């Protein structure tokens, strides 16, 4: 964790102010304000289509925002890129033909003023063994590690990774996060996007949840996890059907299909309380899917029709 002193030295790593990006009638980014201090590791968490990639594109200077301003280390994104402050790994992009791993990584690192040693980059991304292979003949996971190496090679102050572990197997994922953490420990700022809560939880010291182009939650991984990792307790009610929201752990009450659905952060205590009241038949406890959790978090951020349709959710 960075000290407050380090955080106050110079402009923040990232500063979004009222950033909007519209594609046709869709506001992909709908008024994002976000400041990231130097040295932070931040996860952008959100479902597909939430606006994570557009936000990252704006941050990297690839997508011009329609409204608002973005500064990276006090500079416009393009300037920050030119100055070598930024390294990035995007989702799309195939590998170019007729170049080896070593040639490609070596080239990118040489465009930066103060890069990591080539051997160290290859080692960090576990590419040493395949350094002589052509990049267009690699497996999906290997190509992903090459992209990762390209993001780190220049030793940038801020490294931005857009869903870096997509297409990786479990083992490669773990290795990539370990490498990422070693990199962050050197005092570099890291911003990555993911739709896996677990990755945000283990690899970031701050989680920003984005949905429908807005920041809907911004907190420590533990608190976000608590918000998202609820369970649903559902049953056929018996007797009086009120006061459910007062039960321990309950954060939402919904009636449909003749059943009561309670969203809870502490399902054990909720069920105990229900049992004491002897108020149910046919009880079921189920985990909340991430999608459902996002819907809960994004309640306020969604546009009106959807909000009306699910208006009884809380």
């Amino acid at each position, binding site marked *: 964790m960075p000290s407050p002193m380090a955080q106050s030295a110079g402009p923040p790593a990232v500063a979004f102010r009222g950033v909007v990006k519209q594609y046709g009638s869709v506001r992909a980014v709908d008024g994002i304000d976000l400041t990231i201090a130097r040295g932070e590791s931040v996860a952008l968490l959100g479902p597909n289509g939430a606006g994570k990639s557009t936000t990252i594109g704006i941050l*990297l*200077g*690839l997508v011009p925002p329609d409204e608002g301003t973005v500064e990276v280390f006090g500079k416009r994104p393009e300037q920050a*890129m*030119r*100055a*070598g402050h*930024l*390294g*990035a790994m*995007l989702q*799309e*992009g*195939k*590998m*170019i*033909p*007729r*170049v080896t791993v070593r*040639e*490609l990584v*070596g*080239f*990118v690192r*040489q*465009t*930066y*003023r103060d890069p990591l040693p080539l051997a160290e980059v290859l080692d960090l991304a576990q590419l040493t063994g395949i350094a002589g292979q052509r990049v267009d003949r690699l497996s999906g996971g290997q190509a992903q590690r090459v992209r990762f190496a*390209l*993001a780190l090679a*220049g030793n940038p102050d801020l490294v931005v990774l857009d869903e870096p572990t997509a297409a990786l197997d479990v083992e490669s994922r773990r290795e990539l996060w370990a490498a990422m953490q070693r990199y962050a420990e050197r005092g570099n700022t890291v911003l990555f996007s993911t739709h896996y809560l677990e990755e945000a939880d283990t690899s970031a010291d701050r989680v920003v949840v984005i949905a429908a182009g807005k920041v809907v939650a911004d907190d420590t991984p533990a608190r976000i996890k608590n918000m998202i990792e609820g369970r649903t307790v559902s049953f056929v009610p018996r007797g009086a059907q009120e006061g459910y929201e007062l039960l321990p752990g309950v954060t939402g009450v919904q009636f449909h299909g003749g059943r009561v659905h309670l969203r809870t952060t502490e399902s054990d205590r909720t069920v105990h309380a229900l049992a004491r009241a002897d108020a149910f038949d046919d009880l079921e406890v189920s985990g909340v899917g991430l999608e459902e959790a996002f819907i809960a978090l994004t309640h306020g951020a969604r546009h009106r029709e959807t909000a009306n349709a699910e208006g009884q959710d809380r």
Partner: protein
Amino acid sequence: MIGYIRLEILRLIRNGGYLMMSLVMPVGLYLTVAGGGPDQESLARSMVGAAAFGALGVVITNGTGIAEDRALGWLRQLRLTPLSPAQVVVARGAVATCLGIMPIVVIGLVGALYKGVHLSAGTWLEVFVLLWVGIAPLAMLGIGIGYLFPAQLAQIAGTLSYLSLTLLGGLMLPVASLPSWAQPLSKETPVFRYAELSWDAAKGSAFSASGVAVLGVWTVLLAAFAAYAYRRGGRRA
């Protein structure tokens, strides 16, 4: 930027299309149908034409390669490095110009050793430098095509401009063999004026002022075209 030039040179050398355009086609045509002769002026003229044809092929291949790179996301990847967009374009031009040497040298050797072209050492040097440096505006045409069109269209646009400029520029066949309506057009093409510099040098005659002027205007126009195409295509990169 040197690193980028080196990388792109490696990639182009390893491209089969490059070998085809820079060596196989120009040398093949030079040795079969476009050898010229029997007099020295015709021999030199044909040699220069074949070398220019090869160099043109290289810079067009380089340009259409850009469209393929864009489709792969390579241009976007480059925007994620400290290289500026302008540096990338300039480097691509430098790559084309560097690799344009190959057909010029090889055709020159074939001309001198096999076809019996005789020039003084100074004239050889002059012809070589003019063929080499003069290709720069056409390199910008290739780059513009590569940035403006998607991959398949760029391939077509590249081939079309390659063939039409070769014919109109009188590289493989004399301008006099073109239909009469096309002959005045020929004098306005950058390719004819590019080759003309070396034709004049080989003959030992002075450069035509209007030729240099036409080539100068084309250089400005094609640079503007490349810059425009870059700005449009770069945004989609």
